[in-house]
């Protein structure tokens, strides 16, 4: 997994609440058996018209936002389906940080498996940052310090310490868990005694 450290970009602002994962990447693109190549279909229905032409006033079709690495969006971002294709599409487009006042649980956890940093801020801070998007000014994110820098200001954001460590170091979850193999084996042994019906054999 790609490590996340610092990031500097003009953010794109999508002022819509409850952006669901169907909106982020519609179902016709879930038929892939790969993780890559989904970026061109990110926000497909808002981004392209019925003939497949780019809709020029959609934010991510406009310069400089077509190169934004940071997306600011309305509350409850990523609700609905568990499809990891949503963070894969964001990542493939080049977005590695999403800022909102709240995220749906599954999407939030999927982000961390793909080197994407989701940041939760109060609504008034979101409004403040969105001004930078409107003015096409850069903001920067420093994960080490848990801070966003904009103009002469900074905001601190909260993040679970373990999730932060995994992002900073680009750690592989499975390898980490497999280090606990002995504990898993012990658990399984106890389980066989206590609940023999679980194992189906």
């Amino acid at each position, binding site marked *: 997994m790609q490590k996340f450290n610092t990031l500097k970009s003009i953010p794109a602002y999508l002022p819509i609440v409850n952006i669901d994962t169907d*909106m982020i990447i519609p179902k016709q693109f*879930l*038929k892939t*058996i790969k993780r890559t190549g989904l970026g061109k279909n990110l926000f497909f229905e808002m981004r392209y018209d019925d003939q497949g032409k780019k809709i020029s006033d959609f934010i991510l079709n406009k310069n400089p936002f077509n190169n934004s690495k940071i997306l600011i969006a309305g509350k409850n971002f990523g609700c609905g389906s568990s499809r*990891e294709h949503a963070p894969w599409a964001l990542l493939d487009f080049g977005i590695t940080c999403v800022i909102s006042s709240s995220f*749906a*649980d*599954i999407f939030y956890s999927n982000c961390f498996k793909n080197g994407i940093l989701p940041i939760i801020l109060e609504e008034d801070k979101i409004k403040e940052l969105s001004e930078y998007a409107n003015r096409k000014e850069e903001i920067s994110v420093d994960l080490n310090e848990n801070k966003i820098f904009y103009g002469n200001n900074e905001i601190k954001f909260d993040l679970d310490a373990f999730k932060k460590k995994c992002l900073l170091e680009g750690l592989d979850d499975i390898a980490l868990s497999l280090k606990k193999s002995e504990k*898993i084996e012990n658990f399984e042994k106890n389980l066989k005694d206590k609940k023999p019906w679980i*194992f189906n054999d």
Partner: protein
Amino acid sequence: MPNTLYDKIWNDHLVDQQEDGTALLFVDRHLVHEVTSPQAFEGLRNSNRKVRHPNLTLAVADHNVPTTDRSKGISDKDSKIQVETLEANCKEFGIKLFGMNDKRQGIVHVTGPEQGFTQPGTVIVCGDSHTATHGAFGSLAFGIGTSEVEHVLATQTLVQKKAKNFKVNVNGKLPLGVTSKDVILQIIGKIGTAGGTGCVIEYAGDLIRSLSVEQRMTICNMTIEGGARAGLIAPDEKIFKYLEGRPMSPKGEDWNKALEYWKNLKTDDNAKFDKEIDLKAEEILPMITWGTSPQDVITIDQKVPNPQNEKDEDRKNSLERSLNYMGLKPNMAAKDIKIDKVFIGSCTNGRIEDLREAAKILKDKKIASHVQAMVVPGSGLVKEQAEQEGLDKIFVNSGFEWREPGCSMCLAMNADKLKPQERCASTSNRNFEGRQGRGGRTHLVSPGMAAAAAISGNLDDVRKYQN
């Protein structure tokens, strides 16, 4: 300290807990389908890992399968590749799979319970947000992403942080024509789509206890639409009776041991919940959604909202966007909404009781001439049962199409989809923009309400057609 049912299942599955609270949780049951698993199996192959417990894993293709004649296979190239990839992966890693022509094939969340794979007190995961369905059996069941699917395949565990406890009490008796679908729509309307974020919901109260196993599944299924990853109900005699004798249920001495364990699965008196709400069953009416979020609910007697009455700017914009997408006018009566299609099926409402409920309304009636309607049973076994009861004939005689099992138009990954601006009364779970097809307009309703809409040609009150 008194514990909730969620606390108990959590504690019982802790393999390890770090100081910061990050836990490694054992997974008893893992359901796999074709859409969210190919990258996970690929990951296993790339890192030379095996599936730790193939016999705790069950696979079935559901999202992509055609619901029409299957003798010629799948015509869509990408869908075909995905289904074949699942078959190849299951073979390579030794996982049990119900193939497309197996009568046990169906939507994972219908198949799991049907086979007795779903059991009380277990941790059940699947790369699908509607895994919450299995909570009806008193299991901790939730959807996960593909990276987590790979993690579970490789380790039979999952890295998790404990969620909050949220209790939803529903007491009283439901009025005639009102079902568990209306109950969950009402709950989502009340708490909002983010109301349960960070929580596990336990449904309790005498109304919940009075519901059948399948009705409970409908409620737990849509928990995710209220933002909570999992919803559960304490198991009782109805659950035990449902599971007894199912192919994958415990047998013999194991059954007795399991039963003894299952009977103690309940929240302690005085256990603390972080959040709690109460609903009176008597006050719940037949519901519809008018907008593009499952929280956009009104009763069939109400009118579509007017954004001008909203003070909150975000809310006002969101209402306007929804009304515009849905092609509705503010203050329009729900019953004046004319429909083009009806879909009965999905992991929310594709089980035998749902089909009986719709068939009861449709018996000896015809659907409106401009409506195209279809029934997609939740599994091959549901289909078979319905045919034995003659329900297929009732549907077909009324003008419905009788299809093969799968997810179908709930998410329109196969050929079943809405055309732009087409309007559908649907028993599924999501009315998001484009969910049932680009530009398609979805109104979520109960199976009885879907049948009523099919007859009337517009959203209508199921109570009008109660025999």
